[in-house]
């Protein structure tokens, strides 16, 4: 497909998806006023488009990496299906996007996160189409970007591989729900105390619940990363994740 057609396809999808939003342990269907729903959706579009192109690139340059890409998607499917009890007495689920963000960069996971969110919004009434934009922004944009940046920072500071993977996945998960709280607080500032009071309330619901889950996601990501680097060294080297041993 020529570049122009690719771009047209991306733009068409963007327009189709733009006025909608998602919610799950994300934001619930219909619970964001339209103006917010549309704005968050629009913010995601550059990431989705760049993600689509880099997926294409990855698949073309190194076909055997395709399977690892599918596994990154699978990981996100599994983790975001697991609703786990937390210390606050409510349940939430991890996101699983950190793993793929470390391997392929953040925008690839924007696309995969969007697919997961669509699946849950359409079949599970979890999240929603009108909140798809906001939830994509938190789980598929901020989450992977945070994970990717954390991974690079820890590696740059010569931190061990497992620590970089753990912190990346954990912070990516946690920040997703911090952003969810911010989104809700922006849309629903409290009458007394405004944005700050609402933020504290939603953080108590989403972010605190998420802390033990984020630790779990960090650990599970380290496990799958280790398994993969034991058996698919060549592919990870070609993704510049593992440096070649001399």
């Amino acid at each position, binding site marked *: 497909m020529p570049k122009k057609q690719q771009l047209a396809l991306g733009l068409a999808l963007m327009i189709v998806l733009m006025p909608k939003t998602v919610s799950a342990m994300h934001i619930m269907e219909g619970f964001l006023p339209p103006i917010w729903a549309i704005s968050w959706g629009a913010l995601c579009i550059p990431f989705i488009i760049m993600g689509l192109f880099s997926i294409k690139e990855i698949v073309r340059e190194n076909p055997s990496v395709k399977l690892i890409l599918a596994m990154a*998607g699978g990981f996100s499917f599994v*983790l975001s299906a697991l609703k786990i009890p937390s210390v*606050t*007495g409510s349940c939430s689920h991890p996101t699983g996007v950190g793993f793929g963000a470390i391997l392929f960069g953040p925008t690839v996971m924007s696309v995969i996160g969007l697919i997961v969110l669509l699946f849950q919004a359409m079949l599970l009434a979890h999240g929603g189409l009108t909140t798809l934009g906001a939830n994509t922004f938190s789980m598929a944009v901020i989450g992977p970007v945070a994970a990717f940046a954390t991974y690079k920072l820890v590696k740059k500071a010569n931190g061990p591989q497992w620590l970089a993977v753990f912190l990346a996945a954990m912070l990516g998960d946690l920040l997703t729900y911090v952003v969810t709280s911010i989104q809700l607080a922006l849309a*629903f500032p409290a009458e007394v105390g405004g944005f700050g009071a609402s933020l504290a*309330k939603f953080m108590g619901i*989403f972010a605190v619940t998420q802390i033990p889950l984020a630790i779990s996601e960090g650990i599970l990501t380290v*496990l799958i990363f280790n398994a993969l680097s034991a058996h698919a060294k060549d592919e990870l080297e070609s993704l510049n994740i593992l440096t070649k041993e001399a």
Partner: protein
Amino acid sequence: MQTDIKKNLVKRNVNVNLLLILIVVALAVIPLFIAKDAEFGGADGLAEEAITEIASEYEPWFSPIYEPASGEIESLLFALQAAIGAGIIGYGLGYFKGRRKGQKRELA
């Protein structure tokens, strides 16, 4: 000699992995004891309540186009989602592991 060292290393890895899995399980189980009387509903349900408290006049302006007919069907779909993901991961790990074994055999 060398194979002994390698075997010990593999054993250590298995132990570390088991420990890590135990931690994950504990993180999910401990809350059940800490918050004994809690309902363990979804965090999204709590957020709905909070929104109603803050903006009592707010009406959701869109409802899900499809809602699972019951809790059972919902859990079916969640299980399906997890199964698809787990299947892909298992296939991938199996493929790479088998490939490495084959390469080793060729070298030997």
